[in-house]
């Protein structure tokens, strides 16, 4: 559906041929700062990690300072309790631990007089099959892209997130998938990365991280993409799985990485 949207935009620009863009000044209201919580637990031996920051006014710069004085704990439904300690730049970390697939994790954050909580169930891992680079002929030139292959399990609803690293630099593009159209089938998912001043090129080393995420987190990223693309007539904040009025998400996910050299 996304390509269709893009095409519609292209078409309307083609048609008008006289369209123009300019930077304008708008007086935007300042909102009282809100907490932003972003955090995750993986199936790898690494620290549980949460970052807490605050929103800023639109006219401010993009340096988002960490919030230091929060009390952060994570519990699971097997009775474990971990306290996460402040490190730097808003990050709170536990000792390195493996998150167990299938368990429900609950995050609790207390900061100043506010409390926030969120739960996420780590899905069972769906193994990545292969990752390979391929060409796609479209829009008048050759586009390099990466494909990931995996077998979607038929027995449950599955949700995925893919993170791209090009030459070891993480890319901001959010790519998610579900299995509504291909439950129980072999999947070949296209992963493209192409914008005005950056794209996948021949010779690049691309790492694909495949995450299995739960439904609420998937929903968060889908709505986050809508917020970022500003394609809706009435943009809204993404649907967070955190209660208590904070922005952001808490995800317990499995992760696997594969690297490929682009031919």
């Amino acid at each position, binding site marked *: 559906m996304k390509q269709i949207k893009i095409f519609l935009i*292209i*078409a309307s620009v083609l048609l008008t041929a006289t369209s123009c*863009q300019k930077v304008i000044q708008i007086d935007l*209201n300042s909102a009282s700062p809100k907490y932003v919580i972003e955090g995750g637990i993986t199936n790898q031996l690494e620290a549980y990690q949460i970052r807490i920051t605050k929103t800023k006014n639109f006219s401010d710069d993009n340096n988002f300072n960490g919030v230091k004085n929060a009390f952060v704990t994570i519990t699971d439904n097997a009775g474990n309790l971990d306290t996460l300690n402040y490190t730097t730049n808003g990050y709170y970390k536990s000792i390195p631990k493996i998150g167990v697939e299938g368990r429900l994790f609950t995050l609790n954050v207390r900061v100043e007089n506010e409390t926030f909580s969120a739960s996420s169930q780590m899905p069972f891992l769906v193994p990545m099959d292969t990752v390979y680079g391929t060409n796609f002929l479209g829009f008048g030139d050759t586009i390099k892209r990466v494909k990931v292959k995996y077998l979607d399990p038929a027995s449950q609803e599955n949700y995925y997130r893919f993170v791209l690293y090009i030459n070891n630099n993480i890319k901001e593009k959010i790519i998610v998938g579900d299995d509504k159209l291909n439950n129980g089938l072999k999947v070949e998912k296209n992963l493209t990365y192409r914008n005005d001043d950056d794209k996948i090129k021949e010779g690049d080393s691309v790492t694909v991280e495949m995450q299995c995420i739960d439904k609420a987190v998937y929903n968060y990223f889908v709505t986050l993409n809508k917020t970022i693309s500003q394609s809706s007539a009435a943009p809204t904040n993404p649907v967070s799985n955190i209660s208590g009025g904070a922005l952001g998400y808490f995800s317990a996910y499995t992760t696997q990485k594969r690297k490929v050299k682009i031919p």
Partner: protein
Amino acid sequence: MFTKRVHFILIFFFLGVFSVLTAQNKFTISGTIKDNQTGETMIGATVRVVELKGVGAAANEYGFYSLTLPSGNYTLLVELIGYKPQTKQINLDKNIKIDISLVENTATLNEVIVSATKADDKITNAQAGIEKIDIKEINKIPVLMGERDILKAIQLIPGIKSAGEGNAGFYVRGGAADQNLILLDEAPVYNAAHLLGFFSTFNSDAVKDATIYKGGMPSQYGGRLSSVLDIKMKDGNNERLGVSGGIGIISAKLNVEGPIQKGKSSFLISGRRTYADALFKASGRGGAVSKGAQLFFYDLNMKANYIFNDKNRVFLSGYFGRDKLGLKDLFGINWGNTTGTVRWNHVINDKMFSNTSLIYSDYIYKINVNLSADEITIASSIQDWTLKQEFQYFANPNNSLRFGFNSTYHTVTPGQIEVSKTSLIVPPKLQDRFSFENAVFLSNTWKATEKLNIIYGLRLSSFSILGKGDFYGLDSNHNVADTSSYSSGEFVKTYFNIEPRLSANYQLNSNSSIKTSYARNTQNMHLIANSISSSPTDKWVPSSKIIKPEISDQVSLGYFRNFLENKFEFSVEGYYKWMQNQIDYKDGADANKSVAVETELLFGEGRAYGVEFLFKKKYGKFTGWVGYTLSRTEKQIDGINKGEWYVAKQDKTHDLSIVGIYEISKRWTLSATWIYNTGNAVTFPSGKYNVANNTVFYYTERNGYRMPSNHRMDVSGTFKLKERKRFSSEVAISIYNVYARENAYVITFQQDPNDASKTQAVQTSLFRMVPSISYNFKF
């Protein structure tokens, strides 16, 4: 409260019927009023009795009139603006039939703007909230790319607002774009936009009459909340073969009409084709993308009628239009409407006129995507079959009744995804939706006293959801809680509604009047749209167990005054509208993959109020108008904006249009329009934060900001070339946005490309100055 309203209506009906019963010793004059040159029937022409002040009749939409009077000798005066008045002496001692041919008033054509309405129609007509659109006047208004357009022209009328530049949608008195009932020869048109909304589906060469009702709709209309735009195609010239056409920078058109039986019946075929893509390729813009790009539309209007005898006439009319947009074989989308109407006019007797219509309407879109290993098609359609029966009973000069029924069977095929080539995807099967919509209606145009005219009526409507299909119940989290399956033809649920309609005019004196109206409307076909611009793929969804019929109640009050022998018109009209069961997507809705679309929707209410001013000069070398609307439209939907009232997208506080047309000489006409309006209500960020390596904007309230105000001036000049015998032609030059105002189409927020630590707002504008030229001919 409600039963009281019904009582009130019933009393009115009794009054009307009572005066019918008292009629005695009377005879009827009836017939058809036509143009003597083309044979087109003259909608709205009036027949007045000179000897009896205030007694007369108007021709209906088929040119038929009927007038019942006590026996005696009378002089009939037949009038229509732009035509020479005609008088007829009659000796009424039996029922008589008189067909009248009016002669176009060519002598004064250059000084008088031909209008389809009577000079003082605004003062005397009982109908409130009505605007007749003058097709000849439209042809003089400057337009984008020289493509004359009814939908663009009506947006210059107060109370009717543009949905935005490059958007054929319009908002009437705070209603959404899908709340307008757009009829082409009685067939509903589901998507009136061509080329993504830059043009409308109505070819003005084929249109005879267009009327829009902003409120107080007569009871024969129903099914949409906010307005009725009733467009009637020309019948075609029944006197001689005629050809007209035009060539412009992006389109060409040709219109052929002529007699089937000379002087009686006729046909008309009118076609258009745009070539925007060819022009674009020639301009060399867009580089590789433009090669292999397809972007055009075509449409065809056809109509024929046949007169069997004095009492029976049959009309066939059809419309077919398609838009195609594509890029090589990678991607394609095409969409369009097909409509067809078969009508049978039957004069039962000299007082009773019947029309039976069988109507078909279909809107489809189809998308092909071939970007990856899968070739995907998405197809969606909405198809209506309607049977409509209407009787008009011209009881006496003070009462004319209209009654009948309307039955529609809707089939809605949602955007079904189909995959060929490989089996990497198995899309869910979305079910077709079937429904049966019925209405009976009755209305009376009643001349209560010489000064008080009332149109009152009632529409009883029902909407039945039929099987086959699965229907859902939702829990409080909008998830499917239960599913019930129904077999083919089984009734799932029926909604009944009673819709009273009233419009009254009290004439204060010969120059001024007060009008008031009330109308309840319901709507069962809902367009769910959430993107910035309207898209051909926006979803039409019928009412279901969860989606209730939308209901609106509107009241209006207006003052109308004409000056200087009806040369100038002034009016002020205020309205208030309540809307129930309004629909919006919930945050993060994904309608394309959801089997139960209801899980993605939220429901609430709306209110709209405003006041409209119109000052118009109707005759003379210089004509035109100034229209101004001050209005507000709000919505309240649980789950949006914390459940508090918010300003709707279509809210534009101030809306001003100025139209001027100046006939310099017999050959030169100049015209200009200027519009100004407050920007749409929009949602802008009030802050920002970082998540998942993105700088994300933080939104606090729905529609809390305004787009910058829009204003624009368009000018055009029409020069008539030398006329030779029957051949005439003209060149029209127009400039859209003459002072190159950069009106905001959309404003987006982004990271400053030159400084990653900053964010900025970027405004996109579509059209700066767009000149165009077109050549039109006729013989």
